[in-house]
């Protein structure tokens, strides 16, 4: 049996506390030990809660002070900090937003006494929270461990003196605690508090390197998230005044209408800012200046998931209202647009960022579709996307440290140069791209769920097609190799790199192999907590829905057999290897791809990939995409009022 007090303390307070310690203790050895130990603890804790199952929890007052009063103090500290950052940067926008948010929160807390009045439990840990806790615990820990090595190298490379890693790990660990708090919270004001802490961490981490660009992008992330904060606060006020509750579980338990529905719409918008949905995508792209572990942890696998988590959480509350199809359309819209934008990017981290935005859009679309099947798809995506995308970011970060570039063009033939890193990165891509891996299973479920919502379905169809394009050409780039019969020479990696990388890669594949269990043990319950059915069940060969079936294992087996057959059936003999076709002008017999050209001279063959910037470039798409996105969000609100 779980000792709930301890559990909550370890998952929320302990990381924060460890963060504070690391802030003041600069020794690398202690840092390493702390992070490693904490990772193990978080993983164990998340597994324990999985075994334990759902519970609710309201902490006893701490030394006589009610937690709600602590919350007010916490909010005040955050406001002060944000105000300070805004003032320091001379950003009227930020100062104004902070002021507005402070006013709204103060109104909620003091005039409406929204915090005090609730007697609902502060924390409500259901199956969905548990899924999130697992993601945070396992993927988050892997990334934190990876960061240990990464940041050493990073600071060496940038010649940072003295080390700023104490600050860095402070933010990272604080974030892990806040994230756990966020997914466990039942009380919206508490959720909001953790929400704002993650905003703070994100701000600090984006600006971590201290360059002008980093500062600028951090500020952009801050103000956009503050917009979300304002929407969040406004949503809470609306809910408090109309539905008279701020407990998530209660709000979700029944279909809301009128002002409460508008409140939900506000919260959905808040979720969209955190999930960097169009038109708020630019902060997430800017966040890519941060060291890569930050991108992996905050900006793909966990923090941005807070936005979609909130929407999924609340989805039962607007099931059957007009808000549902609109959320679905808005999400699907971001799904396709971000996928299109990803096609035009050659910066690997930006591709990953757009793909993240796109997938978050898909999750929101599923929340909007709001059926058991759709929600199953959404939760499946949260899990599989977190693993694969975390892996991809880590892979790209490591590759960048090896080749000094994150440009996809520079990754040509990487498979030969750094096979292990490339292979794990390719596993990341393959698990995002190919059936029957989890992401695709989720897409399949999403499409089947969407078939009744025409516009969303069309957007999903187009988006899926575009997704194939950018992943495949990136992967192609990394594989493109001149003829050679030489064996690959595997590079040696620090275990702090290889364990998280290989671990996540294995997890990405194993989770698909174990999809039946994932569905019945993790995702099914998370859905059936709130919906009458599960939507997806595991059948003989794979997953079965009410309208279709996906024989995951059959296909996985076929795939495995094919790869083995191919490897066995194609022995590479030295003399079988021929130069590529160069219209008869190969220079070397094999091994390189130079050719003879003008005046019998040697010409290096060069091959560029395609980005279709003329059609799909940011400047082309954003011109119409952002206005449409704004219109969609506005109509979201409008339809809630109707």
């Amino acid at each position, binding site marked *: 049996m779980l000792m709930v007090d301890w559990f909550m303390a370890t998952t929320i307070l302990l990381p924060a506390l460890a963060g504070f310690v690391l802030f003041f203790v600069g020794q690398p050895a202690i840092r390493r030990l702390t992070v490693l130990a904490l990772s193990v603890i978080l993983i164990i804790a998340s597994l324990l809660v999985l075994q334990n199952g759902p519970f609710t929890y309201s902490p006893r007052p701490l030394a006589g002070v009610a937690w709600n009063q602590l919350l007010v103090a916490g909010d005040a500290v955050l406001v002060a900090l944000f105000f300070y950052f805004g003032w320091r940067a001379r950003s009227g926008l930020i100062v104004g937003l902070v002021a507005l948010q402070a006013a709204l929160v103060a109104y909620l807390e003091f005039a409406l006494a929204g915090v005090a009045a609730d007697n609902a439990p502060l924390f409500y840990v259901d199956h969905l929270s548990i899924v999130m806790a697992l993601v945070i615990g396992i993927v988050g820990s892997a990334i934190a461990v990876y960061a240990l090595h990464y940041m050493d190298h990073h600071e060496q490379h940038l010649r940072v003196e003295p080390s700023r890693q104490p600050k860095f790990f402070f933010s990272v660990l604080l974030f892990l605690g806040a994230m756990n708090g966020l997914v466990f919270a039942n009380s919206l004001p508490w959720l909001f508090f953790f929400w704002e802490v993650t905003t703070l961490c994100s701000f600090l981490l984006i600006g971590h390197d201290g360059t002008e660009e980093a500062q600028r992008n951090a500020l952009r992330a801050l103000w956009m998230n503050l917009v979300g904060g304002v929407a969040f606060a406004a949503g809470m006020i609306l809910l408090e005044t109309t539905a008279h509750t701020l407990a998530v579980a209660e709000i979700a338990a029944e279909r809301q209408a009128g002002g409460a529905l508008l409140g939900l719409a506000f919260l959905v918008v808040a979720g969209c800012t955190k999930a960097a949905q169009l038109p708020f995508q630019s902060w997430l792209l800017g966040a890519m200046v941060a060291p890569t572990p930050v991108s992996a942890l905050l900006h793909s696998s966990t923090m941005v998931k807070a936005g979609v988590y909130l929407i999924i959480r609340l989805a039962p509350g607007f099931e059957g209202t007009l808000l549902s199809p609109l959320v679905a359309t808005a999400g699907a819209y971001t799904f396709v647009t971000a996928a299109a934008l990803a096609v035009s990017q050659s910066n690997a981290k930006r591709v990953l960022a757009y793909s993240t935005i796109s997938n978050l859009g898909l999750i929101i679309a599923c929340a909007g579709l709001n059926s058991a099947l759709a929600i199953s798809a959404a939760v499946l995506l949260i899990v599989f996307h977190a693993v694969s995308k975390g892996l991809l970011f880590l892979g790209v970060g490591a590759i960048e440290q090896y080749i000094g570039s994150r440009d996809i063009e520079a990754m040509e033939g990487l498979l030969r140069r750094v096979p292990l890193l490339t292979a794990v990165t390719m596993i990341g891509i393959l698990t995002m791209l190919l059936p029957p891996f989890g992401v695709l299973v989720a897409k399949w479920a999403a499409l089947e769920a969407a078939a009744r919502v025409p516009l969303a379905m069309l957007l999903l169809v187009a988006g899926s097609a575009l997704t194939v394009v950018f992943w495949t050409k990136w992967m192609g780039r990394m594989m493109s190799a001149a003829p050679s019969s030489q064996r690959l020479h595997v590079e040696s990696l620090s275990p702090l790199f290889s364990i998280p990388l290989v671990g996540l890669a294995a997890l990405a594949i194993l989770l698909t192999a174990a999809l039946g269990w994932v569905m019945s043990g993790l995702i099914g319950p998370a859905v059936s907590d709130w919906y009458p059915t599960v939507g997806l069940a595991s059948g003989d060969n794979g997953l079965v829905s009410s309208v279709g079936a996906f024989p995951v294992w059959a296909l996985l087996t076929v795939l495995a057999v094919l790869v083995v057959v191919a490897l066995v059936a194609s022995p590479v003999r030295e003399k079988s290897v021929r130069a590529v076709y160069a219209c008869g002008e190969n220079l070397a017999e094999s091994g390189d791809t130079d050719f003879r050209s*003008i*005046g*019998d*001279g040697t010409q290096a063959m060069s091959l560029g990939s395609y980005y279709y910037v003329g059609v799909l470039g940011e400047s082309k798409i954003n011109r119409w995409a952002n206005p449409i996105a704004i219109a969609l969000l506005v109509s979201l609100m409008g339809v809630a009022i109707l």
Partner: protein
Amino acid sequence: MTTGEQPTSALRPATIVPPAQAPARIENLERIPLADLLPRVRAMAAQGARLVTLTCVDMGGAFEVLYHFDLDLQLQHFSAQIPAGDKLPSITSEYLCAFLVENEIADLFGLQVEGLPVDYHNRLMLTEDSSDRPLLRER
């Protein structure tokens, strides 16, 4: 194998014409000093003439380079002489299309051309094991 009939050609001509007395010559051919070349070419370009081609002739110790122009099917020729070892100025600034024939002259005669936009370095037509400057007369 079938044996065909004798070809139907009429091989035996009826009239016999004596050879012409004076050697034939090219009409509208003007000898110009090398220094005048570019201005004259520019003038042709200004008139809208089409550059037909260049012809290089090895005169032994010097080259004669003929510039052939066409204006409404009327030909106009300039002839410039250039001692072996000197460099021929390229006319590509006026007629870009001359780059091909100038490279060819450089290739086949070893006459260096100055100011080529694309220089094939004596490897336009010839290659490593080709004979060197094949169009020079054997002396």
